[in-house]
C-alpha cells in the first residue's frame, strides 16, 4: 500500500485558446502568407497536432522587412526613449497578467514541465521586458558612448528550447534601443511567439515595430540574409551559426550569435555536497537538458566521486518524468522526433565507445517523445559524449585530481558558454573562475538567469552578449 503517493495534478488546458491556424504577424496585423505551405506544430508529449502555421516565403519576409523599416523610420526611432520604454512596461505587465495562459501554451508546444514555464520562463520573460523598458531612456548611461543610435531593423532567429524567453531576450533589447524587429520563431514552437504578437496588439505597439514570420529553415535563411537587415541575432546550433557568419561576411550587418555548449560543472572535494547534487541535477536535467548552457560534463574530484555519484543517483531516482502539464513533473517531453533521434544516437555512441550509462527505473509514456535522465560514467575526454553537445538529459561524468587538471579538462572543448564551480573555499572558486574560458561561470549554483546579467559564449559558443548593460551594445551604433 502506498501511504503517500502523488496523485495527478494537471494544470488546466482550458485557460488557453489555440486557433486551428495562424497567419503571419506583419505590420501590426495577422496577414495571410503568400505561400501555401503550412507547418503543423505538435504537442511533443502526445504527438497530437496543436495548430498549423504559415511558412513564410521570401516575398512574405520582404513584406515584414518593409514594415519594419517603415516603422523604424517613421515611428520608432523618432519616439523619445521614455515613451518607447512605456510600451515595453506595458508589454511586461500584460505578460504578467497572462502568465498562466502563456505558461500552459509553452508547455503544450514545447513539452517542458509546467512548473518550469510557470516558475522560471514566464517570470523571466516579464522581467526581461521590465528591465529593458528601464534602459530605453537611459542609453546615454550604458557605457557605449554619449549618444548611442539604434541600428535599424534587426533580423532575429530563435530556437525551440525556451521559445518565449528567447523571444524576450531578442525583442526587448532591440526595442528598448530603438530598433524594429523581424523575428522568426522555431519551426516546432511558434505558438507563444504568435501569442506575443497578440500582446503587441493589446499594448497598442505601433504597427511594424515587431513582425513575426513563422517557418522552417528556408524562412530563417531568408530572414538573416535579407538585404535590409541591419543587424542579425541568432540563437541556435553552432553549425547554423557558422553558416550565418559566412552569409553576413562582407556586408555591413552586425551579428551576434548564441550557440552550443558543453559546459563543465566542476565539483571540488570540499563542496557543499547536497547542494552540489542539486546543482548537477538542475544543470543537466533542467528543461530536459535542452539548454545550450547545460552542465553536461560533470568534472568531479576523484576523492569524492563515489560518494557524490551515489547521492546523485539517489536524487535522480526522485525525478518525475511525464505529462508536462502535471504540476509535479520534473522532466517533460523531448521537443521533437528529430531531437530524440539525435539524443539516442549520441547515447548509443557513449555505450559503443565504452562509457557506462545508467538511468533510473522510470516509466516512459507510450506516446510522445521521451528520454529518461541518463548518467554516463567512465567517460574520457576522447568520447563523443564528452565533446559533442547532446542537448538532452544526458550527463557525462569525468574525474580530476587537481585544480589545474579540472581547469584544463573544462577548457578542453571547442565551446565556451558556461561552467560551474562547487567549493566552499572562496579563493579556489575565484581562481578557478578566472581560468575558465566560458562566458558564464556559476559558483555553488547553476542555470540561474537574470535580465541584468549578461549571457553569451567564448569560442564556438558564439559572440556578443545578451542581457545586462553589455547586451545593449549589440543593438547600438
Amino acid at each position, binding site marked *: 500500500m502506498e501511504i503517500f503517493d502523488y496523485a495527478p495534478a494537471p494544470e488546466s488546458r482550458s485557460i488557453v485558446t489555440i486557433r486551428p491556424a495562424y497567419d503571419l504577424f506583419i505590420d501590426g496585423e495577422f496577414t495571410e502568407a503568400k505561400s501555401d505551405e503550412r507547418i503543423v506544430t505538435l504537442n511533443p508529449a502526445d504527438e497530437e497536432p496543436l495548430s498549423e502555421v504559415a511558412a513564410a516565403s521570401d516575398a512574405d519576409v520582404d513584406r515584414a522587412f518593409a514594415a519594419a523599416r517603415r516603422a523604424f523610420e517613421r515611428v520608432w526611432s523618432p519616439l*523619445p526613449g*521614455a515613451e518607447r*520604454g*512605456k510600451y515595453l*512596461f506595458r508589454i511586461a505587465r500584460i505578460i504578467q497578467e497572462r502568465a498562466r495562459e502563456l505558461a500552459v501554451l509553452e508547455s503544450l508546444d514545447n513539452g517542458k514541465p509546467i512548473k518550469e514555464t510557470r516558475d522560471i520562463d514566464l517570470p523571466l520573460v516579464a*522581467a526581461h521586458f*521590465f*528591465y529593458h*523598458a*528601464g*534602459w*530605453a*531612456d*537611459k542609453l*546615454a*548611461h*550604458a*557605457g557605449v558612448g554619449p549618444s548611442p543610435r539604434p541600428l535599424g531593423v534587426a533580423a532575429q532567429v530563435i530556437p525551440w528550447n525556451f521559445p518565449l524567453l528567447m523571444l524576450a531576450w531578442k525583442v526587448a533589447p532591440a526595442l528598448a534601443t530603438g530598433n524594429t524587429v523581424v523575428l522568426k520563431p522555431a519551426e516546432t514552437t511558434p505558438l507563444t511567439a504568435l501569442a506575443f504578437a497578440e500582446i503587441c496588439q493589446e499594448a497598442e505597439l505601433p504597427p511594424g515595430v515587431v513582425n513575426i514570420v513563422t517557418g522552417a529553415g528556408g524562412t530563417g535563411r531568408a530572414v538573416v540574409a535579407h538585404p535590409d537587415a541591419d543587424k542579425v541575432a541568432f540563437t541556435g546550433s553552432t553549425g547554423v551559426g557558422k553558416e550565418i557568419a559566412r552569409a553576413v561576411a562582407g556586408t555591413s550587418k552586425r551579428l551576434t550569435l548564441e550557440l552550443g555548449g558543453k559546459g563543465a560543472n566542476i565539483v571540488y572535494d570540499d563542496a557543499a555536497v547536497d547542494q552540489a547534487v542539486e546543482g548537477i541535477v538542475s544543470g543537466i536535467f533542467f528543461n530536459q537538458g535542452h539548454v545550450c548552457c547545460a552542465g553536461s560534463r560533470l568534472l568531479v574530484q576523484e576523492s569524492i566521486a563515489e560518494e557524490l555519484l551515489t547521492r546523485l543517483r539517489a536524487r535522480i531516482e526522485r525525478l518525475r518524468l511525464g505529462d508536462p502539464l502535471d504540476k509535479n513533473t520534473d522532466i517533460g517531453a523531448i521537443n521533437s522526433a528529430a531531437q530524440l533521434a539525435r539524443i539516442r544516437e549520441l547515447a548509443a555512441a557513449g555505450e559503443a565507445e565504452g562509457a557506462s550509462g545508467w538511468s533510473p527505473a522510470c516509466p516512459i509514456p507510450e506516446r510522445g517523445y521521451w528520454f529518461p535522465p541518463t548518467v554516463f560514467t567512465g567517460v574520457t575526454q576522447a568520447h563523443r559524449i564528452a565533446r559533442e553537445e547532446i542537448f538532452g538529459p544526458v550527463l557525462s561524468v569525468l574525474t580530476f585530481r587537481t*585544480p589545474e587538471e579540472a581547469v584544463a579538462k573544462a577548457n578542453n572543448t571547442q565551446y565556451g558558454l558556461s561552467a560551474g564551480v562547487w567549493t566552499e573555499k*572562496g*579563493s*579556489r572558486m*575565484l*581562481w*578557478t573562475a*578566472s581560468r575558465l574560458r566560458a562566458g558564464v561561470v556559476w559558483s555553488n549554483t547553476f542555470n540561474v538567469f*537574470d*535580465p*541584468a546579467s549578461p549571457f553569451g559564449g567564448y569560442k564556438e559558443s558564439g559572440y556578443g552578449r545578451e542581457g*545586462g*548593460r553589455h547586451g545593449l551594445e549589440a543593438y547600438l551604433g
Partner: protein
Amino acid sequence: MADRTPSAPARVAVRRTYKLYLGGAFPRSESGRSYPVTSSRGVHLANAALASRKDVRDAVVAARKAFPGWSGRTACNRGQILYRIAEMMEGRRAQFAGEVAAAQGMSEARAQGVVSAAIDRWVYYAGWADKLGQVLGAANPVSGPYFNHSQPEPTGVAGILAPAGSPLLGLVAVLAPVITAGNTAVLVAGERAPLPAVTLAEALATSDLPGGVVNVLTGRLSELAPPLAGHADVNALDLAGAGELAGELEELAAGTLKRVVRPGLHDDWSAADPGVARIRPFVETKTVWHPMGV
C-alpha cells in the same frame, strides 16, 4: 446684490482631511494642531496637519525601521514597486491636477502636464533601480591575486526638504531617486502648498511600497527642518527646499557628518534625463576584496 435666502443643498460634499503619513499610517499631528492652506489666489483649500518635533522623531523611527526591509529587497522588486507608484498616480490624475492647479495658479492643461511629468519621473526612476549597480559599480583591476569589486549601497535614512515652488513634480523629483537606491525617507512637504504631498502619500500607501519607506510631514519648515537636520539617526539630508535655512541646516548636519545635498543641484525638475545626479549623493560605495588561489 445676490440672493442671500438660505436654501437646502441637494447634497453636502464630504471634505477630505489631510493628515501626516508615518510608518504606513495616516495620523494627525501628535500636537493636535493644523494650519490653513490656501490657493495661489488666497482661497482657503483645506487645513493641513501642523507637524511637531515629536512627529519628526516618530518619522525618523519609522524610516529606520523600514530601512532593512526596503534596502534588502531586490533592486528589480524596488523597480516594480516604483512603477506601481506611477500606476497609482495615473489613477488619481484628476485629483493631482486639481491640487497642482490650485497651488501653482496654473491652467488645468498645464497642471495636467505637470502631473504627467511627475508620473513619468517615477517610471524613469523605476528603470534605474536595477541598473544603478551596473552604472555606479565596477570590477577593479587591482595588482595582485585579488578579486576586487565595488558596489553602491544605500546610505540609510534620508531627510528631504521638498522644493517650495514645485509641490508635485519637484517633490517627486527629489523623493524618487532617494528611495530608488534603497534608502528610506522623511519628507517635509513645502510649507505653503503641502496638499499634493499628502495626496502622493495616499497613492504611495496603495502602491505596494512598504509602510515607513516614505514618511510625509506637513507644517512649518522652521520648526521641522532643524530637528531633522540635527537628528543623529538621519544619514543624509536633501536641502532642496531649505531656502534661507540651508546654511544653518548644513551646519547642524555636520554634527553627525550627514551627506548633504545643497539647494540648486539639478533643480530643473522636468529635465528629460537627470541620470544618477540625485541618486549618487545617497549611496555609499562598498569595495570587497577576496584572494584568488587554489
